[in-house]
């Protein structure tokens, strides 16, 4: 892999007090985001470590989903939006908000899984193959191989291998969401963004997705927005707490939940607001 991190997370200590210096994957610096005249993100700086799960928590409207959608330039699809600051993707350190950066190239490096399962009304196979086709892969053998790999990695292969060419909508909600995960990881992105991926699912489907996310971080960096504090606690290595468009606190998840540094974080985590 690429062992040389460009930037280190400094000052982070684990429970034993040993300084942890993981490789940084996404380096967010002074990011502000404006929707029209309305400033939604205020000067957020955050180093997302590679091959870890980073959770974003905070009350509704705090900007966590907005932040997530900055990372794959989804805001570019709608008029009246403006970014300030930089988001660097390591290794390499390219600023994905920089001038001349094509949002389409950014989106091919950042997979995304949405709140509600949103498979295309096509076959299971075609759903997973779509990103690969967009990137120019069209040989049947290559596609077959990558589709199987993605479905295995999203723990769906055994359930669907006999009906790959049936419609994705015949799957259950949890299966559909795992299919969307397969679709997002099929192209080997650097980072997968999850936007409250289990908020529309039952507890059993939720726990499968959570297992999957923990399993995934061996291969990919995960950033997940969640409303569910327990979920953040269960699956994330690091947690960012946001409030009113600002990053209040960011650190190792266990430490954040047991010994938050900021009073707002403590209030939110203990359920005093939100």
């Amino acid at each position, binding site marked *: 892999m690429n062992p040389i991190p460009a930037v280190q997370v400094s000052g982070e200590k684990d429970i034993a007090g040993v300084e942890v210096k993981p490789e940084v994957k996404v380096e967010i610096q002074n990011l502000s985001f404006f929707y029209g005249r309305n400033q939604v993100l205020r000067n957020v700086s955050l180093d997302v470590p590679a091959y870890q799960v980073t959770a974003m928590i905070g009350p509704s409207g705090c900007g966590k989903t907005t932040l997530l959608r900055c990372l*794959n330039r989804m805001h570019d*699809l709608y008029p009246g939006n403006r970014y300030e600051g930089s988001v660097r993707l390591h290794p390499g350190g390219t600023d994905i908000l920089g001038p001349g950066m094509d949002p389409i190239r950014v*989106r091919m490096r950042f997979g995304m899984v*949405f709140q509600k399962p*949103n*498979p295309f009304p096509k076959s299971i196979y075609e759903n997973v193959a779509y990103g690969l086709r*967009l*990137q120019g892969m069209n040989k049947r053998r290559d596609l077959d191989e990558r589709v199987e790999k993605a479905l295995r990695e999203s723990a769906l292969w055994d359930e669907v291998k006999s009906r790959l060419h049936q419609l994705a909508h015949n799957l259950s909600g949890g299966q559909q969401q795992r299919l*969307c995960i397969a679709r997002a990881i099929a192209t080997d992105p650097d980072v997968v963004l999850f936007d409250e991926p289990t908020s529309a699912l039952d507890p059993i489907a939720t726990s499968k997705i959570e297992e999957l996310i923990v399993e995934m971080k061996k291969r990919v960096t995960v950033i997940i927005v969640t409303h569910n504090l327990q979920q953040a606690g269960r699956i994330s290595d690091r947690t960012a707490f946001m409030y009113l468009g600002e990053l209040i606190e960011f650190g190792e998840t266990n430490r954040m939940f047991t010994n938050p540094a900021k009073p707002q974080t403590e209030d939110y985590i203990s359920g005093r607001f939100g």
Partner: protein
Amino acid sequence: MLSVGDFIVLPSQNLRKQEARASRRRSIDRWFGRIGLLSTIGTLGVLAILLLNLAASGLARIDWQFLLSFPSRRAAEAGILSAWVGTILLMIVTASVAVPLGVAAGIYLEEYAAKNKWTDFIEINIANLAGVPSILYGLMALGLFVYQFRFGQSVLAGGLALACLVLPIVIVATREALRTIPAAIREAAFALGATRWQAVWHHLLPYSTGGIATGVILAMSRAIGESAPLITIGALTFIAFLPPAPILAQAPFMSFDWLFSPFTALPIQMFNWVSRPGEEFQSNAAAAGLFLMLITLGMNGVAILLRKHAQRNIKW
């Protein structure tokens, strides 16, 4: 002055009042049901009478001789060959102009254009265009296509006039079909790195084909019955020949001369016969009307089937 007693309503009195009010509300409810049923029956009844009337006087006239003969001074020998051929050629021109233009405009307005004052203005005006009387389209076509572009009183001019007439319907149908696709599907495609055009071509168009096709067919069945714009540009009412064939026996095997041929169409032939004295011509008119009606109903049937077929794999 108010006294304490004014605020106290005895339970029994209160109940009686409520019961009276409820029974009045129930009776209004019942009456609306009756009035609604009556107006439904009335409307459908008029339609049924119209159809039966046409069938009674026209059905006997529809046979191969009628379909394969040119118009004639003798009612019994007259037919609608040049009329239905003209109608089909007009529809070919209309569809091949209105469908690509209308669908492209609909896609642009719905998927590409920024939502601002200008697009609001355009949207309102497209709705207005759909309401412009058809004879005005005829006048526009007469000035523009017949005289300015010198297409003459031809199939091409007529087809273009009808295309202008139905263009707003196709645009609106396309936009509405696209609007039924959830934003989450667009975002799913974009998040994988699709361009706008790829999202349209791979997803939005395939998923809205049913809706668009339905709109197109309804637009065509509107165009097929129009006579005012065709009369305005000078469609002939008595044509005893067919336009030149589009397919030739020898190279280059194709000919577009038919575009510049004079033409007549079913509604015009019908109009011509209705205005003649004599029982026999009236039943010719009824037969032509019946035939036109059958084509329209057939097209609407196809529209319903198409929608069912295209939508069978799609649920959101």
